[in-house]
C-alpha cells in the first residue's frame, strides 16, 4: 500500500484553477519529484500535503490515515522551505530544537536529539551560530536537520537547491539523496529542473497547468513520454508531425504504429538521429541551418520546413568537419524502436 496518496486534489485561487484532479501515490521509502515549470501548481500540491493549502476537493492520505482536514501542526510531515525559513532569532541548535521544545520534551532528551541531528548533517561545530552567519549550503542542512529531528513519516522539500550556486547544487543533490536513502524517509521534492529530478528521484511526476501529465520512473519518462509536453520537458526532443498508414509511419516505415491511420506525432531524441547526405530512403529531408561542433559530437539544426528546426546530435570522428550550412541532408532514426509515437498531432512540426 502506498505511503502517501493524493486523490483527486483540486484547488482554485479565485478563478484560477491551480490544481486539477491531481492523483499521486508514493511508496514507502521512495523519493518522488514534482517537476514542472513555475506556475504549474507543483508547490501548491506540496503545500496541500503539508496542510498550508486547503484543497477544494480530494483527499490526502499518509500512512493509511486521511489527514485532509488535519491542521499543519498536527501532521507528521517534515517540510524544507524554498529558502529554508530558518528562524533568524534562534541559533542553529535553537532552530533544530524548536519542534522538540514545542512538544515539551525533556531538556536532556532535546540536547541529545539535537546533537544527533546536527551530527547527521555535519554541522555540530556550528550549533551556536545564527542562520544569517551560515552559507546557503549550511542553511539547507540546518533546515533538513530541523525537519528530520522530529522523525517525520514524510519529508517534503520545496526547491531545496534553488538558493544554492550551481557548483554547490550538484554536490548537495548527491549528499541529500544519500542522506535520504540512509534514513529511508518517504520524500517528495518539488523542482523545475529536470536534471535535478533525474538525479534525485525514484519517481517523477511531470506537471503542467495544475495536472499531472505523467508519473513514473525518470528513465521511463525519458524513454516513453506519454505526451509531447513531457517529451520536451524531460531532456531535449524533436516532436515531429507524421502520417500513419497501415500500421507504419509514412516517413519512417521502421516505426510501428498501433493507432489507426491519420496524423500523429513522433518523438525522436536528437541523439537518436543520424544524418545521410541526401540518398533516397526513409527519414526527414531538409537543409543544415546551423552546426555547432562540440568536440566529441556535433549538434545540427536541420530546417525541415516546420516551425521548429530538427535537432540532431551526431558523434564526431577525429578530423571530421561539420557539414556546411545549406547542405541537403536526410535525418533517419538510428533505433526506430526508441521513437515514441503519440496519437496527438504536433503543433508545429
Amino acid at each position, binding site marked *: 500500500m502506498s505511503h502517501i496518496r493524493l486523490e483527486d486534489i483540486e484547488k482554485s485561487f479565485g478563478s484560477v484553477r491551480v490544481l486539477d484532479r491531481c492523483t499521486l501515490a508514493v511508496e514507502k521509502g521512495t523519493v518522488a519529484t514534482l517537476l514542472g515549470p513555475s506556475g504549474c501548481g507543483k508547490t501548491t500540491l506540496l503545500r496541500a500535503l*503539508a*496542510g*498550508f493549502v486547503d484543497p477544494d476537493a480530494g483527499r490526502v492520505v499518509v500512512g493509511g490515515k486521511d489527514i485532509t482536514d488535519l*491542521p*499543519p*501542526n*498536527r*501532521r507528521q*510531515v*517534515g*517540510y524544507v*522551505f524554498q*529558502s529554508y*525559513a*530558518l*528562524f*533568524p*532569532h*534562534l*541559533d542553529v541548535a535553537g532552530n533544530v530544537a*524548536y*519542534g522538540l521544545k*514545542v*512538544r515539551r520534551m525533556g531538556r536532556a532528551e532535546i540536547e541529545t536529539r539535537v546533537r544527533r541531528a546536527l551530527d547527521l548533517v555535519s554541522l555540530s561545530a556550528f550549533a551556536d*551560530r*545564527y*542562520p*544569517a*552567519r551560515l552559507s546557503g549550503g549550511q542553511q539547507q542542512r540546518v533546515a533538513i536537520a*530541523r*525537519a528530520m529531528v*522530529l522523525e517525520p513519516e514524510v519529508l517534503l522539500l520545496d526547491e531545496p537547491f534553488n538558493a544554492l550556486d550551481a557548483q554547490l547544487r550538484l554536490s548537495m543533490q548527491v549528499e541529500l539523496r544519500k542522506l535520504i536513502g540512509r534514513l529511508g524517509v518517504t520524500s517528495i521534492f518539488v523542482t523545475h529542473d529536470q536534471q535535478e529530478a533525474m538525479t534525485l528521484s525514484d519517481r517523477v511526476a511531470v506537471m503542467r497547468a495544475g495536472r499531472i501529465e505523467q508519473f513514473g520512473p525518470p528513465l521511463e519518462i525519458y524513454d516513453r513520454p506519454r505526451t509531447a509536453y513531457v517529451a520536451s520537458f524531460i531532456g531535449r526532443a524533436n516532436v515531429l508531425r507524421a502520417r500513419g498508414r497501415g500500421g507504419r509511419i509514412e516517413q519512417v516505415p521502421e516505426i510501428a504504429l498501433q493507432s489507426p491511420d491519420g496524423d500523429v506525432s513522433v518523438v525522436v531524441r536528437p541523439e537518436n538521429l543520424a544524418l545521410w547526405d541526401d540518398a533516397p530512403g526513409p527519414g526527414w529531408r531538409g537543409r543544415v541551418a546551423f552546426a555547432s561542433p562540440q568536440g566529441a559530437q556535433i549538434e545540427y539544426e536541420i530546417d525541415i520546413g516546420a516551425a521548429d528546426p530538427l535537432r540532431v546530435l551526431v558523434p564526431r570522428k577525429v578530423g571530421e568537419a561539420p557539414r556546411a550550412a545549406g547542405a541537403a541532408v536526410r535525418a533517419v532514426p538510428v533505433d526506430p524502436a526508441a521513437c515514441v509515437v503519440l496519437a496527438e498531432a504536433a503543433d508545429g512540426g
Partner: protein
Amino acid sequence: MAADAPKHRTSGWRRILHGRGIWPAVPALVFLFVFLVLPMATLLAFGFVTIDRGRVVDGTFTLENLWKALNDDLVWRLMWRSFWVAALSSVFTLFLAYPVAYLFAESRGLWRALVLVAVVSPLLTSALVRAYAWLVILGGRRGILNQTLISLGVVDQPLRLLNTDWAVLIGMTQIHLPFMILPLLAVLAERDRRLEEASLNLGASRTGTFFRVVVPMSVPAIFAGLALVFAVSYTNFIVPQLLGGGAYATLAVQVYEQTIVVLDWTRGAVLATILLSTCFAFVLAIVAAGNRLARWNEAAA
C-alpha cells in the same frame, strides 16, 4: 579583486555633487546646529552661570545650581514620578498597540487603509487638544465617563478620575499610542510569513507560533516604540498639567513652571539639564536592552 579595481580619484567637488560621504546630510546638520543645538545649549547654559538683574555676569561658571538641585529631595521625587509614569504608559501603549498593528498586518486593501488612517489621524490634532478631550471625558461629575457609568447604574457616586495618576496615564497612553503602533506596523506587515508556516509545520499551535516567532521577531520594533514613547512621555508637561491638576507635578512640569511662571531661568535650566540627560540615559538603557534581546538582528545586518 579589490586590488584589481581601478582606483577612483575624486575631487572634493565631485564628492559633493555625487553625494558621497556625509555631504548629503550637511544641510540638515547645519539646520539642526543653528536652530536646535545652539539655542538649546544657550538655554541650558543659563543654569551654569550667575545671572544678575537679568544679565549674565561674565566669566562666571558654577556647578552650584546643579549641586543644589541634585541635593533637593523634591527633584528626585519629581524625577521618580516622571519615570514611572513614562515607564507605565510605555508598557500600556505596547499592549494596546500590538493588536492594532497585528490587525493592520493581517488586513488587506481598504481595511488596511482604514486602520492606518485611524492610527495616524490623531497625530493631525495637537496633543493639547487631545488632552482637553480627555478632560471632557474624565472630568468631574459632568464628565462623559461618569455620566455614562451612573446612567448605566454601574456606580452611584461619580468616580474621582481627573487629577489622579490614572488620568495622566490614560491621557499619555492614548496620546502616544501612534508612536508605538507605527514601528510595529512596518515590522509586522513586512514579516516573513513562511517562518510561521515553518513553526506550524514543526508542531507549534497558532498561539505558540505567535509567542515563539512573531513576537521575538518584532523585538527590535517593540523596543524602538518603547524608547520613543518613553522619551515623549517622560518630557511631556501638558498632560500632567491638564489631567493631573494644578498640584500634580513631574520634572517636565517643574521645568515649565520655573521657566514660564516663576521666571527662575537658572533653576529651569538646571532642571531641564537633569530632565534631558536622564531621559537620554533611560532611552539608551531601553535601546541597549532591546539590542541584547535581539542579538540575532546584528548577525543579520
